[in-house]
């Protein structure tokens, strides 16, 4: 086993330091070392988006990024999306539009959708579908997810 490395990163607005083996993915360290289990694993090979986080404002599949690459980066996970006691409009609209069934894909969709709305607050349906095409949901057929994102745009 290679020696662990100290990594310093800003995680959900907190400066954080953690130890990581060079081979560990960011997803594994978030979940197993830092107990931030809101970020989910669906495939561990970049094909489902359940593990989506934001790194310096860009959406990333955390299963495809090594934890040591987080050095000096700003990371936002699902746990960092709501403000204190106030849900993000996306979280609120997902609730109101019944945009989740089992909910395993939901953290990834909300982080990915935030990545879109931060950049394109007026994205239309096609653009939302295109942007979220890297996130799989097997329960909903996407209809209510797309509606929830379009509704959140209006609230923002």
């Amino acid at each position, binding site marked *: *086993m290679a020696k662990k490395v100290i990594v310093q990163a800003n995680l959900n607005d907190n400066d954080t330091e953690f130890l990581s*083996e060079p*081979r560990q993915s960011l997803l594994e360290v978030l*979940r*197993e070392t830092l*107990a*931030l*289990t*809101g*970020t*989910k*694993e*669906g*495939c*561990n*090979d970049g*094909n*489902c988006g*359940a593990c989506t986080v934001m790194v310096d404002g860009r959406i990333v599949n955390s299963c495809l990024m090594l934890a040591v690459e987080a050095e000096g980066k700003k990371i936002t*996970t*699902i*746990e960092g*999306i*709501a403000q204190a006691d106030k*849900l993000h409009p996306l*979280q609120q609209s*997902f*609730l*109101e*539009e*019944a945009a*989740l*069934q*089992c*909910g*395993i*894909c*939901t*953290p990834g969709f*909300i982080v990915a959708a935030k990545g879109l709305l931060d950049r394109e607050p007026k994205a239309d349906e096609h653009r*939302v*579908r*295109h942007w*979220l*095409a*890297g*996130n*799989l*949901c*097997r*329960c*909903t*057929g*996407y*209809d*209510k*997810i*797309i509606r929830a994102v379009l509704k959140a745009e209006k609230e923002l």
Partner: protein
Amino acid sequence: MTTTENRPQFKVVGTRPVRHDGLEKVTGKAKYGADVILPGMLYGKVLRSPHPHARIKSIDTSGALKIPGVKAVVTAKDLPIQSDKMVELGEAHANMKQIAENCLANDKVLYKGHAVAAVAATSPHIAEEALDAIKVVYEVLPFVLNVDDAMKPGATLLHENMVTRAVLGGKPDPAKQVGKSNVSSEMRWVGGNLEQAWKDSHVIVEREYFTKPVHQGYIEPHVTTVNWNPDGKITVWTSTQHTFGVRQQAAAILQVPEGMVKVIPMEIGGGFGGKINVYLEPAAAMLSKKTGHPVKMVMTRKEVFEASGPTSGSHMKMKVGATKDGKITGWQLWLAFEAGAYPGSPVAMGAMCSSAPYIVENFDVSALDIVVNKPKVAAYRAPGSPIGAFAVESTLDELAEKLGMDPMDFRLKNAAKEGTRQITGAPLGKIGNIEVMTQVKNHPHYKSPLPVGPNVGRGVGMGYWFNIGMQSSAALNVNPDGSVSLVTGSVDIGGTRVAVAMQAAEILGIRAEDVIPTVADTDSIGWTGVTGGSRTAFATGIAAINAAEEVKKQLIARAALMWEVKPEDIEFKDGLYINKKSPKDSVTMKQLAAKMMMTGGYVTASATANPRMAGAAYGAMIVDVKVDPETGKVDLLRVTAFQDAGKAAHPSYVEGQIQGGAVQGIGWALNEEYFHTTDGVMANSSWLDYRMPTSLDLPMIDPVIIEVPNPGHPFGLRGVGEVGICAPMAAIRNAIFRATGARMYHLPMNPGSIVEAIGAKKAAGHTNGAAKK
């Protein structure tokens, strides 16, 4: 949404409150199976067979045990001996010994990916590395990958002593010659006079279909954590559709009393039928026993594909005739389903369900369950029904076309209704079949002109699922603030906490938000059946209704005590307890709850329901497609999905079931398949290559809820979870025909196969043209 009958209006049922567990799920706080972290926890990994069929000559685990960090290794030899007793597992009977062998192969591996040994170590990486140090000697055997090869004389036998079970009309068929075979059972139903029926037919269509196995595709992989204490108590934290089923299977495989096993349900990331059988628990339990530590095991996505799920691939033949005016005369259906490595495909359900929308008087229906060297199939949303429906709804479309009839007129002419006998002889109960068909025919989508342009077509299809009842338990505890805690044993996969809570709220005249639902472990609530079979909102709903009625009765007694009148003098109306003797005296539940301690203590109630009349569900789809004849790509232009919900408890989540089922069916129709290479290996065991629909592949799915109340439920609910997956394959296939003139007989209808079918059609057209000259 359409209501077909005048019924009392509900206050809570039929509204759309925010689900109670939603906030935790949109903030990442909800704990799913993989989120379990326990003190001293070890990580388990599974060594799997590289061969589709082989005898295990020896397993040497000594190398693995020498690796630092490795704590234990288990093989099938470590599993207590199992008996052959059959157990009830939701929708399918499963042989416990075979479930155990599927978890850890005994003397033979029966598919690539079959578990052979498991390792526990201090990290998942060490456990994975240790797998390479286990030496297994195999004697490689020939293998069979589809039903036709498996039935050939001389085919390699997966289970050397298996003899076909021949069943005619539900009873053993002594006339049938049976021998050792990969066909585990052949069920047959015959009725009427088929010979005469063919003579009476104006048109007869005879067709043949092939489908591939497809996976349920839940986003959360299988996961479990097991702790086996030295006192014999075993605790399982898992994502399952059926906690009590995991308890039963684990206890049977580990040969311990059921009471020694406690199953704690974690939130579950999808199941669709695939999370009922155990896969990891027996190995995790034995590893925990050996090490004295809790052991967590998570499948990789590749393992999920190769060693869990899927549903059957099939070969089907259908011959059906009709009179000139479109009445079905004869009905002959032959279904052969892959069971995977062990018997138990849903072929009988495929045969019965696909015939259920129609009046079928002269019939001969056969259903063959056939083992092949692929993973053992598991239930998948209306198991068997969508496969059968693909054959039936496709053939009927061709029959209607030959008759020159509108496809919905043809279906309506032959529509089964209450009292119609199914092929099993059982009459249908109160159903919404005709209502669904009528809604399709009258829907603006059906009446609208096709979108303009070439290669555009519209198709329809029907679907049926019988739904199940079974036992559920619920407990209600009134809190001093007037809220009510609701405890059930039903795992919530898609919004059933709220749908069940709403039913209790309806009875008590309170808001859905005032009911606080919890899903309890197997030590904390009465026996409850699977979250599956579309039964949860229906059956657990009835348990909650019964408990709520009991709470109401007790609260009426408390009100009577307060006013010193008899309970009969209290009227309950719109959430108010009213003194009939002095109608100005009325109290709310909140006020009664605040006084509970003075009127006799806290009010609690529990109830168990075991309803039978689950209320069968019918569904349908209209779909418009555009096909690119050059590339074979199919674009879905418009999709409308219809379903009889009886009464939609929470319409948003009923719509969600309809939409989700529709899209799984769309994936099955167009893309999804287990692609096995000739060496017996699944070549597409990742989501990159097993392509499920993404948001970009789809339009909005317009759900139409039809409400023909189920007399078996106080509010009229029918199961809603499954039937939505039945119609899409044939509907899309029929639309592709209208868009291109090509008839498809294989699933999936991927671009390559569509280009090929269009090419074949053109070639045939040219030949015909030449013949005419």
